[in-house]
């Protein structure tokens, strides 16, 4: 939109102040329990300054950086999903009259669990996060029956994105066309520039709201060297990406190999814990339960995140689950993400953020599984284990 501006490190708190003045709760990365989580933060002092993360399949550790970068790490287990689709919410609460009629429905977001504010500014979104946000919005709100509460949440959200300057070992956003460069979907985009002499953020705006916000922050025009450095930032991250997945080919590959022996092999390792679905920024499965008080007068329908790894996920009324084996449940997750999502919603369900790889307790790697299914089709089939769990 307008020309890129420069915010000095010490002026970045003015952005928080502006958001707070407009009534926004700022959510961003912060260190909790030796992990970079997303939580409400007050200002730059809550950001993980000088902290980085070391990630590999099944491994996550924090480490100190040699500099004081505020965004010198990759993604933690949380994603914007927590605010787009809260993990536990009351979809309605009602009073039950003696004849059974439910009345006095309240669906107000504030009736949900405590601590779930409804006007959120998210600072620190990476390219993959923005793509994930769009995918999840398409799932939740793109159909014929959008949920008004979730619509409100989506519309109220302000996004302050950050360009990645480094890629983590589990990242594969480039393969999924979801990064590392942020190109759209933000109100303000920050690129952190840091050397011995200065620490600044190049700020671009992507919306009128973003422009209005940035006007509240002391800035100066960006110089051409700074602009060049900003442009080089995501390019540097792109060069560091190690993992790959052939997104053009994976859908047909998986559909063609629903009975591939690799599913059995991965089932031998998979604990069906569902971690991958919890950390995935697009996994959207939820289940509902009705909760009544002791008198039966107050009824509440609660919606909670669910996982296709839970055996009851595919429960058939009057029968058992359609997907009983670990093999079928892993296959469901992976083929949904990389293949059937496209048929269901017109987009891939994967942005290549790598969270599912990092947070899998046994280090199952979706990119490796895709390769295994692709590779074995050209070579001898692996022995099929005699036993299924």
């Amino acid at each position, binding site marked *: 939109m307008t020309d890129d501006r420069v915010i000095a490190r010490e002026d970045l708190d003015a952005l928080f102040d502006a958001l707070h003045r407009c009534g926004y709760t700022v959510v961003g990365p912060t260190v909790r329990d030796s992990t970079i989580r997303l939580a409400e933060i007050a200002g730059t002092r809550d950001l993980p300054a000088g902290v980085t993360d070391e990630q590999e399949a099944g491994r996550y550790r924090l480490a100190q950086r040699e500099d004081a970068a505020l965004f010198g790490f990759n993604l933690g287990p949380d994603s914007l999903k927590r605010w787009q689709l809260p993990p536990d919410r009351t979809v309605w609460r009602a009073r039950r009259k003696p004849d059974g009629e439910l009345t006095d429905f309240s669906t107000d977001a504030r009736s949900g669990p405590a601590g779930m504010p409804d006007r959120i500014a998210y600072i620190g979104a990476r390219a993959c996060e923005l793509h994930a946000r769009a995918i999840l919005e398409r799932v939740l709100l793109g159909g014929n029956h959008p949920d008004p509460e979730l619509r409100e949440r989506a519309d109220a959200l302000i996004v302050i994105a950050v360009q990645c300057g480094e890629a983590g070992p589990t990242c594969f956003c480039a393969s999924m066309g979801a990064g590392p460069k942020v190109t759209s979907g933000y109100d303000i985009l920050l690129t952190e520039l840091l050397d011995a002499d200065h620490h600044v953020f190049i700020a671009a705006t992507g919306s009128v709201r973003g422009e209005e916000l940035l006007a509240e922050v002391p800035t100066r025009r960006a110089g051409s060297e700074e602009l060049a450095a900003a442009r080089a930032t995501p390019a540097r991250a792109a060069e560091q990406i190690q993992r790959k997945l052939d997104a053009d080919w994976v859908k047909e590959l998986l559909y063609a190999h629903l009975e591939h022996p690799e599913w059995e092999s991965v089932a031998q390792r998979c604990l069906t814990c569902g971690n991958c679905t919890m950390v995935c920024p697009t996994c959207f499965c939820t289940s509902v339960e009705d909760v009544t008080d002791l008198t039966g007068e107050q009824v509440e329908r609660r919606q909670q995140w669910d996982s296709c790894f839970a055996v009851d996920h595919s429960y058939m*009324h*009057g*029968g058992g689950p359609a997907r009983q084996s670990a093999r079928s449940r892993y296959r469901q997750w992976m083929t949904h993400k990389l293949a059937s999502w496209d048929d269901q919603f017109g987009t891939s369900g994967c942005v290549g953020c790598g969270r599912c790889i990092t947070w899998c307790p046994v280090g199952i790697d979706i990119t490796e599984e895709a390769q295994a299914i692709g590779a074995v089709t050209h070579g001898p089939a692996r022995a099929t284990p005699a036993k299924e769990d």
Partner: protein
Amino acid sequence: MLTLAQEIAAAEVFAGLAPEYLDLITGCGQNVHFDAGVILQREGDPADVFYLIRRGSVALEVHHPGAEPIRILTEGPGEPVGWSWLFEPYRWHLDARTIQPCSLIALDGACLRGKCEQDPALGYELMRRFARCLVERLEATQFQLLDVYGNARVGV
């Protein structure tokens, strides 16, 4: 009304047989009529006669002591009743009972069996056709065993 020969030629189990074989089978056949509720054959009886249904229907039942017979299958017009006449030990496995007044063609299975021994081409044709009946029966039995209506679906 079709003649005995036409009725036999039109039955799916005999359709397309060479004319001389159809003549031979017709020669072994005889029109018979039964009231409803008549036992045509009993489990364990020698299987020397089988039937082709012209009108009415015939139930195959399993008898067990202390309870009503269990009706496991019904056969209708154009369908044969019984294949045990063609397979050793040539004894009926089930009771067969008319459930309506029936017009049937009774066929002399013992005689046909003898012809099959003498003419392997006829034997092959009949074996092939009745084996198909057996396969269909086996598949239907498997389906029946699933008891699919017992626990599936609630109303969607």
